[in-house]
């Protein structure tokens, strides 16, 4: 099994390092495209900032990062071993 994992040609094509690298490029392209697309659609902008073409990209990334770190911080207080209630 270990030998299989070391040899990229034995891996499923989707998890080969080369495929993953390509997927990152495609993903980056799609991300850029959605931001550029913001320039071509009319954003109603109900409130401040949300009429800018880049707004939802930045907002999506920033709020998610905040939630991940927020959860991580709360985890320090809330996390317990998963057999906590087993006794």
């Amino acid at each position, binding site marked *: 099994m270990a030998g299989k994992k070391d040899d990229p040609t034995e891996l499923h094509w989707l998890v080969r390092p080369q495929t993953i690298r390509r997927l990152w490029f495609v993903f980056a392209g799609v*991300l850029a495209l959605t931001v550029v697309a913001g320039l071509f*659609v009319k954003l109603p902008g109900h409130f401040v900032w949300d009429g800018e073409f880049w707004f939802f990209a930045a907002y999506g990334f920033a709020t998610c990062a905040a939630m991940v770190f927020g959860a991580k911080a709360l985890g320090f207080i809330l996390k317990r071993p*998963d057999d906590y209630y087993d006794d």
Partner: protein
Amino acid sequence: MTIDQISPGLILIASAFALPFLRGWLRAALILLGPLLALWLVWQIPDGATLTAKFMGLDLVPLKGDRLSRLFGTIFCIMAFAGGLFALRQARTIELSAAFFYAGSAVGVAFAGDLITVFVFWELMALGSTVVIWSADTEKARRAGMRYVMIHLLGGVLLMAGIIDFVASKNTVAFGIGPIQEVLTINRPGTWLILAGFLINAGAPPLSAWLPDAYPESSPTGMVFLSAFTTKTAVYVLWRGFQGFDVLIWIGLFMVFYGIIYALLENDMRRILAYSIVNQVGFMVCGIGIGTDMALNGAAAHAFTHIIYKALLLMSAGSVLYMTGKRKCTDLGGLFQSMPLTCICGIIGALAISSFPLTSGFISKSMISQGAADQHLALVWFLLAAASAGVFLHAGIKFPWFVFFQKDSGMRPPDPPWNMRLAMILFAALCIGLGVWPQPLYEILPLQPVGYKPYTGYHVVEMLQLLLFSGLAFFVLLPFMKRTLTISLDVDWFWRRLGARLAGEFTTLSNRACGLTADRLQARLEKALETVFHFHGPKGILARTWDTGTTTLVIVGLLAAYLVIYFV
């Protein structure tokens, strides 16, 4: 009796009782045709009351239809059908019977025209769902089911207390959009009691923990049913009775973020999805709180689409659990290689829950945000947008990534049996079908005309930016989301740990008190016995044996005394 007087819920309940007596194709036919018959009956019920009764001087309306009832009745029956198909050959008969009983009771609530009928079906739902949890037949499920039923019985008590106050003040139990809006005034304690009873079932704070505590302990098929009915009937009754209640906006938003944060911390795939139920119901509760036609239609539409994609996600997770026996992300991974269909259906469900364009979530959730924008509720709107990104983070990517991709667990289980695959394909098709062609759903929404166009350039670009950059955040921050063998403390700590400790302490103290009392009692008894023994024991003055001489002497003495008394 006409056709519109047959309760579709009772058809499902009758099927539940018939199931244990059937075998083979008859059993399969009942499981699949029962819900379809009920679905047909749902659409035979016209607007207005079709069945009325008198009870203790109150006018009961056990069967009353309108657009909202039919919408929820429809999705409950579709769910019973797909759940039945998924569980057809895998679930125990008791679980299927309980699930149909549970589904029928939910349909019963949807067509209840008065609060007493709501209450009766409400309690039957609690009963049915508890048996579904117990059907997993494990010690953990038995305990979790017991905790679950306690919370729901508490909800029932609050609801009943509220109804009593309601009857006392207005002498009616009518439950319809018009009358209840007039009658449920904010000043009555009954209003708040009814609201509390409804909110407990919705998974609202402070007791949200019952949901992720109990549902994941059910069987692989059981949780598919559980995800659909309890919380969505709560959404239904809130929609009817409490639309436009401002407090619901904030309760809903709390639920949304509670679900995201706890799901991010969670390691068990089914608990991730359980937290995400609370998260999604939060969107609906928030929409009901906003209370405009747009937001209300959005809440109702979202309940409809949510039942489908959440059941699909749980079918996918259930298939993994059924085939591998494992639930923890730390044990799973790489399953896409051998379970491609389960993986693709899971991804479709995950995209739908994230409101990706061309999926059902996109055409329903956005109506709630639109409702907030129309009302210029800036904070609410920004929070809902952040929450949409968060849904993609905690359910949209996290669930499929950790279960089907990430590291290779080395397991290569095949896709599940045909009936489970078919149920997943059906719901995956519905997720995409409704996303591509939302018109049929919009036409059955409660408030017409709907007048919402989801596919505008702005909206598509907005959602794609929000979701894809949320995806970017996920992969960039992946090192911070390493799975650990942990659970997260929640309010259930109060009854699982603190309560248990207090009860333990009480037992020790009361045992000690009992012991002390018993010791003292014993000491007294012994003393009393000693006294008795002293006088009446074998050597006691009153009971010891005398020798013949002494006896004769005493008798002579007595006779002499007798003679003396006689002569005197």
